[in-house]
């Protein structure tokens, strides 16, 4: 009897041992599978939310919706719910996007700060060149690592032995330099930025416009209709002096800066728009300058606060420009200042 039973006992012990081993392995592999699936889900959620956020930023750039907004996007079959707010109080021109996506019963959340996809304006740049930019004169833009972005529609070739860009250098073609100190990045083969066109009629007939003569030696602007007073010169204008408060001067012709220009205080701001050329006989100026041709003398031009945006440059001296970030910081200033591209 004992011999008959021993085989059965051995068989039972073996079966129990095998079963235990299989159960342990099953538990381990099941947990491992669960872990792998979770990692996959986390990755899927992250990429789905990133895709949704990229789409949301693109649509905001096209003006599809205004902020703040709650929007849903389906990416690879997953529904992503996004909350989009303006993050410019923390980082200028950025959006804060918080998204959630449910995958297999678990909701994943991601928060990102992304740049607003902007239609760039010439007035965001210290130096905006609507053509190729070869020059042997020293170029200095911005100061202290900021407000010195440079753009050219064409190849940039800086031949001077000293050039400094406190910001980004963008070219729709290539960039070559003899020497360049740059705080930001160099971008080649970038998309072009359109140069706005101006219609004198939009300025001569604007509400509250003041018509001026052929010479202006400083001016104290009034508040005007938008907070910026608009002056209209029907023909060529000579310009110099100190400018107080905010004003825009539209010249249906050419402008010549005959002597130094300055601001009365830090809140003053000036824009000079010419349908023709602007000639800097005196280098020290202030304000945004927009026109067809830019001419300088051998002393060049030194814009202490403002910007230069021209179709062509004919330089005979060095160029120093520090961008006034007023329009970059608050795009609503553009139409108030009657800037091309913002007004009308």
């Amino acid at each position, binding site marked *: 009897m004992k011999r008959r039973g021993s085989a059965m006992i051995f*068989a039972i012990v073996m079966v129990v041992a095998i079963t235990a081993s299989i159960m342990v392995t099953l538990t381990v592999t099941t947990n491992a599978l669960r872990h792998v699936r979770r990692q996959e889900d986390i990755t899927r959620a992250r990429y789905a939310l990133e895709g949704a956020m990229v789409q949301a930023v693109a649509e905001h750039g096209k003006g599809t919706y205004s902020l703040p907004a709650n929007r849903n996007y389906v990416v690879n079959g997953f529904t992503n719910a996004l909350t989009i707010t303006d993050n410019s109080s923390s980082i200028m021109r950025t959006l804060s996007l918080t998204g959630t996506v449910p995958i297999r019963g678990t909701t994943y959340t991601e928060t990102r*700060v992304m*740049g607003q996809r902007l239609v760039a304006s010439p007035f965001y740049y210290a130096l905006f060149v609507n053509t190729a930019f070869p020059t042997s004169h020293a170029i200095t833009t911005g100061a202290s690592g900021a407000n010195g972005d440079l753009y050219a529609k064409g190849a940039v070739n800086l031949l001077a032995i000293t050039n400094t860009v406190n910001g980004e250098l963008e070219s729709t073609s290539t960039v070559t330099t003899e020497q360049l100190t740059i705080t930001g990045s160099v971008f080649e083969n970038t998309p072009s930025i359109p140069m706005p066109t101006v219609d004198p009629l939009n300025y001569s007939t604007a509400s509250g416009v003041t018509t001026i003569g052929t010479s202006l030696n400083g001016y104290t602007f009034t508040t005007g209709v938008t907070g910026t007073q608009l002056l209209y010169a029907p023909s060529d204008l000579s310009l110099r002096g100190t400018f107080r408060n905010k004003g825009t001067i539209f010249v249906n012709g050419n402008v010549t800066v005959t002597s130094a220009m300055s601001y009365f205080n830090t809140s003053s701001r000036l824009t000079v728009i010419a349908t023709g050329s602007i000639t800097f006989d005196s280098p020290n100026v202030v304000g945004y300058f927009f026109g067809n041709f830019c001419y300088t003398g051998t002393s060049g031009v030194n814009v202490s606060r403002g910007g230069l945006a021209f179709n062509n440059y004919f330089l005979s001296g060095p160029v120093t420009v520090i961008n006034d970030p007023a329009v970059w910081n608050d795009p609503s200033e553009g139409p108030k200042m009657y800037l091309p591209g913002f007004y009308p």
Partner: protein
Amino acid sequence: MLTLTAMVLGVMATLYGFAMSRLGHATATFVTTSDAVWAADVIEATVRDSYSCSIVSISGRSCLKCILPVTETDRDGDGFADRYNALGVTRRGWEKWGNTGKRIWFYQGSGAGAPSTAGTILFRAKRTDDATPTGSDIDNEFTYARDAKLRRPLISTFTASVNSSSRTVTFTISTSSLTRDERIHSAESTNNYYTHSETRTVAWRNGIK
């Protein structure tokens, strides 16, 4: 009766041996994959957040060096940042990340942790400058579990290459394990070990400082 007993014992012993052998194979498959995937996940996350990546040759061995963005957040408290914020945006709205953040290195070396010494141990090192990492820069939690025991002992090789034009890193992590023991195989016959190669191509950020 004795014959029957012997038959039952033989069958059960064979069955047991077969089951244990298959379990060993299954375990070897699982652990080789697990070690490789875990390490690949860490490297992928680092590359994906990097401002730029490059291959640095040290004593003839290739090391992967990643420069991370400046503004960082460590959400899980492991001493390594896992979320980054942009410094600002360009005039076109492209995010700027800065190029003065931490330098994270991945390389194989010996137990001391210096990349100049050959070895099969995969290390992660962190520096705030571009100097070559030393043993004092390594992340012990990444490599070791406790008492100098390797956290992922089955990693045999780590190779990486960089494509600067497409801003991608392609890396391969190879692992192997004996079916009878959780360690890297050497000179074993074909059926007694498993190998796994995890290859990934990961893109890094737009690299705008």
